[in-house]
């Protein structure tokens, strides 16, 4: 199994989720994160003083999938999340050794369906 982690722009979440559902992926975990990268941060003001906030709001998706569909999922995410502008984010793939569905105790690929 593979774990796919994607950091994307928040407003793209709906589209990415739809793209994944379309290729048959029905489980994922989402969290709000802040990203630091090439994308320039905002300047903010407080009583006349300026400061730069360089950690920008992003959404992180985590999904564990059978090896067989990992590449398909990566491509789906990449396509759906793309705006072409800097800061679109990254997708990372890493190995997972075991998965368990808590409700049933099912393991491995069966836990993911």
């Amino acid at each position, binding site marked *: 199994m593979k774990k796919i982690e994607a950091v994307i722009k*928040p*407003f793209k*979440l709906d589209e990415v989720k739809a793209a994944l559902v379309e290729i048959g992926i029905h489980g994922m975990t989402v969290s709000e994160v802040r990203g630091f990268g090439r994308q320039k941060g905002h300047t903010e003001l407080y009583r006349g003083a300026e400061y730069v906030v360089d950690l920008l*709001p992003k*959404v992180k998706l985590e999904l564990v999938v059978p090896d067989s569909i990992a590449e398909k999922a990566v491509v789906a995410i990449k396509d759906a999340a793309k705006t072409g502008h800097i800061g679109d984010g990254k997708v990372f793939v890493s190995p997972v050794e075991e998965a368990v569905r808590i409700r049933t105790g099912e393991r491995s690929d069966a836990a993911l369906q």
Partner: protein
Amino acid sequence: MLARLEPLRRRCAGLLALGASFAVPLLLAGAARAEDAAPTADPGHTAWVIAATGLVLMMTLPGLALFYGGLVRSKNVLNVFMQCFVGAGVVGVLWVLVGYSLAFSGSELIPGFVGDFSKAGLAGITKATTWQIIPDVGASPEFIPELIFVMFQCMFAIITPALILGAVAERMKFSAYVAFISLWLLFVYCPLAYMVWNANGWIFKAGGLDFAGGLVVHMSSGFSALALSIVLGKRTGFGKEPMPPHSVPLCMIGAGLLWAGWFGFNAGSALGANGLAASAFLNTNTATCAAVVTWALIELLHRGKATAVGAATSAVAGLVAITPACGHVTVLGALVIGAGVSLISYTAVVFLKSALGYDDSLDVFGVHGLGGLWGAVATGLFGSALVAEPPSMGAQLVLQLKGVAFAAVFAVAMTAIIALVLKAVMGLRVGIEDEDLGLDLAEHSETAYSFGTGAASFVERAPEGYG
């Protein structure tokens, strides 16, 4: 707010002149001629009572809603707001239809206990109808429009049942709550208001003192809260997992607005802008300050730290305790009442609750029930009636204890009956899954907070062009 001279209020305004210091014969003659005219409202007194009425609404919306809403978990805050808002709506309608009549009509269904429907729908009350303000000893009668008295009392009728919700927060069915407070208003609040504040009420006639509602508002809601929370049962997880306030700042805003609004409640109960109102105001503030300082000191001694929730709680406790007494005591009495209530309520909230094991979610019994009781008793200890020859301290204390005992028993018994009937008819609690999910989603299909840029994306379809 005692309507002690209510039967007099249709007498002539000419008597006004009698008490005035520069009354000369000729003016008296003029006054005599006008003897049969209807009394007219004084703009100054009216001005303060209108403003005070607005302040008392603000105590509930948003004051109490915030005070309680901040203390519950974030999944239940909207339910608290709904209990306050829809509760206000229901009471506001019932009040003009029947509630005011039951509490303040001149004739009665059960002598000494409750009025009748003679003023239902505000029958007979016009813009020109007036109501007499609380007369100070020797002062001449003065008046405000009865319509604003109707509203001033309406705001009391709105906040009193809302106080109870603190005891049943986080688990009561919304429909059951609305049904409960409707019945409670008619069968508990209106009769008690009649007994204590109507010139024909038995407690009033006996000479019991309750300037702004220690019995009618705080003991009634506090003891009912205890009864209802016991019938309802504890929250799931109560005593095992802590349920910390989701937003102490909201609670503090609420406490601040309650404090400010309570000046309308207490000083407004003079029904006029005069020395009595000023005195009630001063006692209200002083007792509250004393309660806040005392609670902070108790916390410091008991746990080593003074807390913000403690400050908010003690402010409310001080305001509760001075409510029945504020028109009857001096500044010294106010200091003692304020300090005393912190001792009593802190003890109740920390030790009594865990000893007895009831789940009064936000401590309505400890703060309002016992705070109101203490205030009513203290009125007998430190206060004096606004009459020419007030009874002795001992005699007044006995009167107060009678009232207190009756109010406690009456509130508990009636509430238990109403609650048990409703439990049988419609059920009182949400299911355990709904309790876990939170009442905001389960009962109102809403979420209080949607932070984060991505929040709006967490949604699938939007039928009917939602936007």
